[in-house]
């Protein structure tokens, strides 16, 4: 499914009640689509995996611009435990300076959408000699000391079976916001139906 398919449904179901420019061509509608995609990622519908190169002495990493939440992390072949800053403070007051093989990851509180490894890696990964993404590097070409990440992803192209539910949730937001075509009853019904459809395909 593409975003364009969903926005075409939004236009068709709205019945051109939004004056002037069709909804599908409005930046506001596109941003509402992104909002719904993020919501679905938070609710556990869409996730992805990334493999990141590590650098000795670098503790903070960032999976991708579509990351909504980090779900799990792996250093080399080891699954890292999720930790909290207040727990790490008890292990060492200067825990950010500890070097070694990472054992724990935490959601970083000082940078956006990033996560921090503890201890900070004292060795970097081998060179990535292939394209990033879910290619060969997750198989036999896995580079030692690379960082694997599962993350909830706000994806532009959602699976096709989410077309109609997503279109309805976009309509609910479009017709509940302040505008010349605001229609709370219509928006409420779209939200209700969109949620029913999500329950059906769950």
């Amino acid at each position, binding site marked *: 499914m593409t975003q364009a398919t969903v926005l075409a*449904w939004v236009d*068709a*179901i*709205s*019945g051109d*009640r939004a004056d002037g420019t069709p909804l599908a061509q409005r930046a506001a509608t596109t941003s509402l689509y992104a909002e719904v995609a993020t919501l679905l*990622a938070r609710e*556990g*519908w*869409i*996730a*992805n*995996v990334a493999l990141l190169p590590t650098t000795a002495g670098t503790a903070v990493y960032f999976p991708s611009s579509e990351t909504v939440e980090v*779900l*799990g992390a*792996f250093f*080399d*072949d*080891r*699954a890292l435990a999720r930790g909290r800053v207040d727990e790490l403070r008890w292990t060492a007051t200067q825990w950010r300076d500890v070097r070694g093989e990472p054992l724990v990851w935490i959601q970083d509180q000082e940078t956006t959408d990033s996560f921090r490894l503890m201890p900070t890696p004292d060795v970097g990964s081998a060179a990535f000699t292939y394209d990033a993404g*879910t290619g*060969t590097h*997750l*198989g*036999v070409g*896995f580079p030692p000391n690379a960082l*694997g990440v*599962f993350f*909830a*992803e706000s994806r532009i192209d959602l*699976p*096709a*079976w989410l*077309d*109609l*539910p997503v279109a309805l949730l976009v309509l609910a937001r479009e017709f509940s916001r302040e505008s010349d075509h605001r*229609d709370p*009853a*219509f928006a409420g*019904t*779209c939200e*209700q*139906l969109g949620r*029913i*459809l999500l*329950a*059906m*395909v*769950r």
Partner: protein
Amino acid sequence: MATAAGSLITTVLLRVRDPDATAHPRAFVLALLTEAQRCVNGAASQVVETATLTTAPARQCYAVEANLSNALRIVGIRDEAGRDLTRTPWSALAHGNRRWWRQLGSRPLVWSLVGRDLLVLHPATPDAQTLTVAYVKKTATLSSETSVTETTDDVNDFVLALTEVILLLKARRLDGVAGPLGRLAAFASDRLTDPAMQREQSV
């Protein structure tokens, strides 16, 4: 038994009092029926098919849509010998072995989903394997009025109800929405309280 799309279009247009398709072109209703059938099959799990998935050596993660384009929801996986793989939450894999992420074995034993579109097959194998994946199908597009539904007649009422609600929404006739919307809500609720489905959801 399946039903021709044209017959469903006529029925739903009668329900929304537009028998001549003046407000709602029949081609638009046909496109809606495609979407409605997909959602209803998602709940009813009526149309299930299998496809083969060839794994890559030493690899455990696979994008579902890229590898199984017709899959709406995976329901089971078998290996080459016909043995079922066990479904497990991915977060539980580390309980057995913190190094599961790169672990190799002679055959995959368990499968997990991260979200709905990332499949984990564990452990990885040194060589490619051919697995059989069973899934609830994303039903095909109804391309013309002579196309027939893949779901059976007993769920036609829900396909029609969903299409009817959308047409009423489009026409802003919200007073007529309550009936079909209530039937759909009950249908979705039945599915969510089905014990077999709850077990599936829990992992």
